[in-house]
């Protein structure tokens, strides 16, 4: 009976190995077709940002790293894995790993943080106990998203009616994104999905291009001079 279990386990492991290899080949093929570089692993990316999903963790790694250019800026896509290690009441080690697909586009200069995340149950419960996010003129937008940022006035300047309209479109609704430092990034649960990369970068570039000139000017960059 034991040999049956061993054979099944070996077959399962081989299946996982094969599926992973096909996956890596698909990612490498995508990179080649897009003119990007498949770097593999670069754990420095796991420490580059402070906000979600890069919260506190005991172990972090950035794998399936793809680097390239999009809409005139450097871009990166990777799978971020974070693990929390704890001990249960019996002293046994418990490991809890979460995985996110992160896509980021570099900005010309650093801007104040602006974070837009889909309004979920957690956010709704938080509001009940008083944690308010920034509210806008559109009730539909307020119900769809939770907005936070370091400077409320800058947040209002960045999240203007035309951008709100864009973020409420069917293909865009539900996308989490954040401007942090000189990057705009988006993330979702799960490993790298190559079918998402181009569409997400297009959205991030749209958001970047929708930032009003005066916001850039206030942070040392004139987009009009660049063009």
């Amino acid at each position, binding site marked *: 009976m034991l040999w049956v279990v061993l054979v099944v386990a070996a077959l399962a492991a081989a299946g996982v190995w094969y599926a992973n290899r096909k996956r890596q080949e698909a990612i490498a093929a995508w990179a080649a077709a897009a003119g990007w570089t498949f770097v593999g692993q670069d754990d420095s990316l796991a420490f580059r940002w402070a906000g979600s999903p890069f919260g506190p963790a005991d172990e972090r790694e950035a794998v399936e790293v793809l680097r390239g250019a999009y809409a005139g800026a450097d871009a990166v896509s990777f799978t971020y894995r974070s693990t929390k290690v704890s001990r249960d009441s019996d002293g046994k080690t418990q490991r809890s790993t979460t995985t996110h697909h992160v896509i980021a586009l570099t900005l010309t200069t650093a801007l104040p943080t602006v974070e837009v995340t889909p309004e979920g149950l957690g956010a709704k419960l938080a509001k009940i106990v008083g944690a308010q996010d*920034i509210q806008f003129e559109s009730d539909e937008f307020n119900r769809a998203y939770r907005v936070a940022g370091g400077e409320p006035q800058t947040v209002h300047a960045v999240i203007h009616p035309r951008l709100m309209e864009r973020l409420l479109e069917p293909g865009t609704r539900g996308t989490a994104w954040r401007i942090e430092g000189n990057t705009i990034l988006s993330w979702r649960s799960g490993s790298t999905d190559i079918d998402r990369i181009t569409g997400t970068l297009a959205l991030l570039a749209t958001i970047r291009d929708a930032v009003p000139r*005066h916001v850039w000017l206030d942070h040392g960059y004139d987009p009009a001079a660049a063009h």
Partner: protein
Amino acid sequence: MVPTLIVLAVLVVLVVIVVVQYNGLVRVRNLVQESWRQVDVELTRRHDLIPNLVETVKGYAAHEKSVFEEVARARSQAAGTGATPEQQAAQENELTHALGRLFAVAEGYPVLRASENFQQLQLELATTEDRIAAGRRFYNANVRDLNTRVESFPSNLIANAFHFAKAEYFEVEDPAVRQAPTVTF
């Protein structure tokens, strides 16, 4: 003894609620005032750009006196002090109409439109209009927050007791916003 303690506890809770509500109203009222000051800064920036713009257009179309006088009058009125947000909005709308006529005059002079100085002024004015729009939205968001607290229960009880009043929204005509959407069937 126990009933006395209960009454005391209830009184303490009520006092805490009143203090929290009062401080919240003060905080939002200060935000409204501060954000209005920011709007005022941007409006002043707009008013300061206009004389240079008028002089540039005059260099090519000196005979369009009525338009220049209209802009100067509207600017002078808008740049005055002491207006409420509603009054300021009306003055800014009049200035926007006057500027619209000024730019209509400029349309008839290709050399003017092509001049670097005029293009730079147009860019600065457009950027300032964006600043005003952003400042206005932030101010109105704070007004919305204050007015909601002044009107909603139970904060309205504190607002009435301590004479907190609703603030005025600042609504100006924004050509881009008020453009009719294209409807297809």
